[in-house]
């Protein structure tokens, strides 16, 4: 048994061509989910195989790749995916949002505004926004064909009737370019406004469900809502303990058994940049710039 030799960025050229063709169609039809012959990747389905296949298909030797999960470059799955590309494509990587040309993400959009020179690649678990209302693909495909999105509005309205609010807080459905209703992947609805009119191209890959879709740059993306219940982005009633940011998405950290808690930026690069620029929160004095190593017991 000889050790296999893999192609640049792991995927064979035929697979890349197939994915590239799907990406072009996805861009031409904003928000429409293009079926593609997703391959079995050397990482589990549900762990970013769709995003990885897109990244592998667009990545070139001059790219600089950033990979985040939950907003952070250092979460284990982000580390693992970054390592995969270093190993198979030898590309340069970065944790700096502004240095990256390709950013693969799971569950967040970076706080820093993206530019025209960047591509944001989302990992998507369930690409079909109507799936939880109608489990059948044959049905949801027909609904998209006819722009029949009443079911989604009924669902959101039922939330309002029961809770007084729309109870969807992440993977909040959007309408892209006035046509397709789309699942923005499980980003918190806090991030939804960043989807719209972004200078960057946004690509979405769902490996297990075999779908690719896209939001071209400068495309209007509207979070579904009602006149009397307009979309409200999520707001924290707190600031980042480290950098003092009042307007970033925060992770809640439990600090003792009594349930004491504090909040820190989910976007670690954003937080580090702010601290480097001299901002600090209640616990983020200059001495706090050090980091601790995660328990090395795995």
């Amino acid at each position, binding site marked *: 048994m000889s050790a296999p030799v893999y192609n640049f960025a792991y995927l064979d050229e035929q697979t890349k061509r197939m994915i590239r063709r799907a990406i072009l169609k996805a861009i031409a039809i904003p928000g429409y989910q293009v079926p593609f012959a997703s391959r079995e990747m050397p990482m589990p389905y549900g762990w970013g195989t769709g995003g990885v296949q897109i990244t592998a298909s667009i990545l070139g030797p001059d790219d600089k790749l950033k990979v985040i999960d939950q907003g952070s470059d250092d979460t284990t799955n982000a580390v693992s995916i970054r390592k995969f590309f270093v190993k198979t494509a030898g590309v340069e990587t970065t944790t700096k949002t502004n240095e990256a040309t390709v950013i693969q993400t799971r569950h967040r959009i970076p706080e820093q505004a993206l530019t025209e020179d960047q591509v944001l690649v989302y990992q998507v678990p369930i690409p079909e926004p109507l799936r939880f209302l109608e489990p059948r693909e044959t049905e949801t495909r027909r609904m998209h064909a006819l722009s029949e999105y009443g079911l989604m509005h009924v669902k959101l309205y039922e939330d309002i009737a029961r809770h007084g609010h729309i109870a969807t807080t*992440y993977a909040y459905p959007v309408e892209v370019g006035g046509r397709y209703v789309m699942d923005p992947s499980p980003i918190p*609805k806090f991030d939804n406004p960043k989807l719209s009119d972004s200078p960057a191209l946004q690509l979405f890959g769902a490996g297990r469900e075999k779908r690719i879709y896209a939001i071209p740059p400068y495309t209007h993306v509207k979070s579904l809502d009602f006149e009397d219940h307009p979309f409200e982005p999520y707001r924290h009633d707190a600031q980042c303990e480290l950098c003092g940011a009042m307007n970033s998405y925060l992770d809640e950290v439990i600090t003792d058994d009594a349930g004491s808690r504090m909040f820190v930026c989910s976007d670690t690069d954003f937080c580090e940049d702010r601290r480097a620029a001299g901002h600090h929160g209640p616990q983020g004095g200059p001495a706090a710039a050090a980091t601790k190593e*995660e328990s090395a017991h795995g």
Partner: protein
Amino acid sequence: MYVAVKGGERAIDNAHKLLADARRGDRDVPEVSLDQIDNQLALAVDRVMSEGSLYDRELASLAIKQARGDLIEAIFLLRAYRTTLPRFGASEPLDTGAMDIRRRVSATFKDLPGGQVLGPTFDYTHRLLDHTLAEQSDVEEPATAPAEAGRFKSVAELLAGGGLIEDDDPPAGDVGDLTREPLSFPAKRDLRLQNLARGDEGFLLALGYSTQRGFGRTHPFAGEIRYGEVEVEFFAEDAGFAVPLGSIAVTECQMVNQFTGSANRAPCFTRGYGLVFGQSERKAMAMALVDRALRARELGEETGAPAQDEEFVLSHSDNVQATGFVEHLKLPHYVDFQSELGLLRKLQAEFHARDAHTETPIQDAAE
């Protein structure tokens, strides 16, 4: 003072070392060899090849060793390797009639050309733990007889000769491949069968069983189950004819099911088909039951049972997909969870404010 957690990369490296250590286990115990897995855990190898869609005993054995005996993990390893292989084309259809039979049973006829061949089977073993296997044992040479030469028609073929069972013509045009084209619904039978052949044994077993209990009953008879070696041929464009590539072991099950018919067609039995790599009668039979159940609509039968629901069955049969998505829940989800927490706290606050309002309206007005 709080500092952000770092060191994911080191943790991963260390976790891999721990995994390697756990895989090896006690160093005083001899390491298991691929030959040992191939020979002595042959049915595990068969399953991994089948659901991994790759016929290679050595690689399947390696996958089982690497996966510490977790067969779904091993199937995953084999699948991921398989995708990287170049493709030369599709083989000619297997002629299972020409199988070098090691085992063959029919539940529908007492005897038939080629006979019943019990072969290596658990069927009539008494399931008593055999403590002699706990030690190394000398196994006596089995009695064998020379294989009967010739081609033995399957029960379905024999029935088809008399017009008693529906025809089973190969589909016109190319056979689909769901690893190259995404599955769309409704799916044709070739793609359904491919999906089932790769499908999880446990899932198909449960579905097949459910049809027997009335959730989409098909009145099955095990027309025939055969296991043995068949030759694989590949049509070589440059040679202009099919050349043999070698032989593989497969288990085939042809179920004979209750008849169908109409005003302009005489009633005849219908078919359910199962084919898997290696020896796995359970999987081949379950597959045949589910294949037949999935034909309900085509045959004008009532539908509605889980095993008859093509989209449900085909979308959930793949254990590599299923395990990935179930297990992905252990990845961090704290960003979304935070969003949910935020809303829940808000709803609770509103709820309690309303409560307070009903009980002490005056105080509330001052809020």
